[in-house]
């Protein structure tokens, strides 16, 4: 009897999961349907470069459908809700999809309207986000014309996709204004709800020093409650204010909207309660989650989604054949951190191990926790790898899903 897998979301996770599953299971054995509300697959790591004129917006978008291999059904439709009890998905037009296995891959949604004053008068004029294509594009014009004043980069609250991107923005802004001879008339300040530049001690220290050496001020433990776009200031819940002439924010994130309409599916922020090792949801045994949609304590990042891929697919296969789940995800993430001047830092970590110095993926490889031109090239090359290797659901040569200990330098005990 043909089993039906429904995958919600045709972004990074949905696409690689669908393609991997299609390759593993015959069309007679398993029917795979992917649902997404639009056909615009955006290479999100490229958004960072748009405000600085390093990438054009149209270079970042391809058809979602075109990334899915043959034998995968694709439905373009908004989702109304998931009926967990009935094992069905109800689409916006009322159509009902029954599933044997549901994979939630609808990622994280930006919620700029949830911060009072953010999307008011100053939105896309003096306060922007580069996490959306339109915002990143509008910001390019503003940055090119920005001659002096206070640039404030703010993460409103966690969790966010790609926690290093706001730091990268600060580094690139420093480079951009230095290149254009305007740096000494511009003050750059990074405002974060965290108590440091990053949440793990060694990386926080390294990144914090880099911010300091580039003259970027840091304000920590500030949870932005509202924006006063008339006076141009961010107002923390604790009453602290941060004035700006130009603000670049990362808005609040939540899970996809339909999750709030799906009884029992999501947590209070609409992320899916998920086992951090098996990627099976804690909601029902036939529901799995991959990528930013899950509530697991890993970064919301494309690399995490990729490393989750083979474990997810292994466990879905086991579930379908009634075997116990074996796949063990270790929370592996790695991130290239653009630091300007054609250099980048690479960090590699998992649930148990914080970013450490050394090399990746082995003793011969890219330098960890250090700026290098090689890392910058790696970041640029990654775009090709994304479309041609990662989305089709291939593993990368020499790059295993689990975080390697080889090549890492631990502090002497």
């Amino acid at each position: 009897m043909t089993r039906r897998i429904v995958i919600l979301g045709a972004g990074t996770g949905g696409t690689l999961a669908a393609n991997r599953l299609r390759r593993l299971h015959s069309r007679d054995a398993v029917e795979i349907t992917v649902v997404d509300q639009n056909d615009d697959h955006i290479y999100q790591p490229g958004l960072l470069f748009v405000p600085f004129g390093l990438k054009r917006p149209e270079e970042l978008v391809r058809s979602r459908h075109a990334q899915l291999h043959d034998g995968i059904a694709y439905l373009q439709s908004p989702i109304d809700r998931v009926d967990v009890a009935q094992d069905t998905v109800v689409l916006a037009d009322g159509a009902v999809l029954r599933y044997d296995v549901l994979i939630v891959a609808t990622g994280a949604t930006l919620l700029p309207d949830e911060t009072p004053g953010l999307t008011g008068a100053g939105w896309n004029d003096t306060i922007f986000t580069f996490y959306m294509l339109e915002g990143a594009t509008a910001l390019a014009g503003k940055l090119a014309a920005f001659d002096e004043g206070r640039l404030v980069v703010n993460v409103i609250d966690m969790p966010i996709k790609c926690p290093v991107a706001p730091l990268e923005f600060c580094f690139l802004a420093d480079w951009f204004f230095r290149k254009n001879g305007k740096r000494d008339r511009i003050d750059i300040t990074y405002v974060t709800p965290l108590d440091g530049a990053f949440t793990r001690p060694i990386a926080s220290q390294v990144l914090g020093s880099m911010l300091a050496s580039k003259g970027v001020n840091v304000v920590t433990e500030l949870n932005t409650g509202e924006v006063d776009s008339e006076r141009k200031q961010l107002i923390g819940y604790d009453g602290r204010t941060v004035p700006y002439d130009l603000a670049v924010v990362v808005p609040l994130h939540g899970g996809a909207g339909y999750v709030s309409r799906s009884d029992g599916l999501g947590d209070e922020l609409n992320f899916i309660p998920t086992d951090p090792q098996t990627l099976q949801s804690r909601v029902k045994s036939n529901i799995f989650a991959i990528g930013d949609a899950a509530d697991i304590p890993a970064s919301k990042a494309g690399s995490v989604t990729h490393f989750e891929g083979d474990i997810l697919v292994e466990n879905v296969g086991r579930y379908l054949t009634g075997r116990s789940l074996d796949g063990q995800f270790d929370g592996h993430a790695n991130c290239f951190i653009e630091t300007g001047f054609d250099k980048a830092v690479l960090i590699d970590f998992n649930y148990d191990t914080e970013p450490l110095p050394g090399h990746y993926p082995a003793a011969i490889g890219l330098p960890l926790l250090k700026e290098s031109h090689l890392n910058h090239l790696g970041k640029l090359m990654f775009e090709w790898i994304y479309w041609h290797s990662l989305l089709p659901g291939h593993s990368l040569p020499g790059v295993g899903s689990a975080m390697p200990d080889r090549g890492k330098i631990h502090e002497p005990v």
Partner: protein
Amino acid sequence: MAVETLGSVTLDGEGFFVHPDEWTEAMVPELARREGIDPLTEQHWKVIRFMRQEYLQKGTGPAVRALSKSADISIKDLYQLFSKGPAKVAARIAGIPKPRGCI
């Protein structure tokens, strides 16, 4: 990392309980006083008990936004009750580890 004791209880360098099972409700008034909270109101107790319960059920206390939504108290009110970072302060008083900030 400096470690101090509250009676026979061990706190880490940031004031969080190293062994959450050493906590009792009787410790709450003193812990609150150390955070500058005196007197404790019913709202304070509600949040503290909620944080403790979330930790016992889920293995971690919630961060401030999740706390606001599930305890049904506005973030503004949480900051009125616990002025310096409600999730962290309430976690210290509730004898649970620092809420897992996202990475």
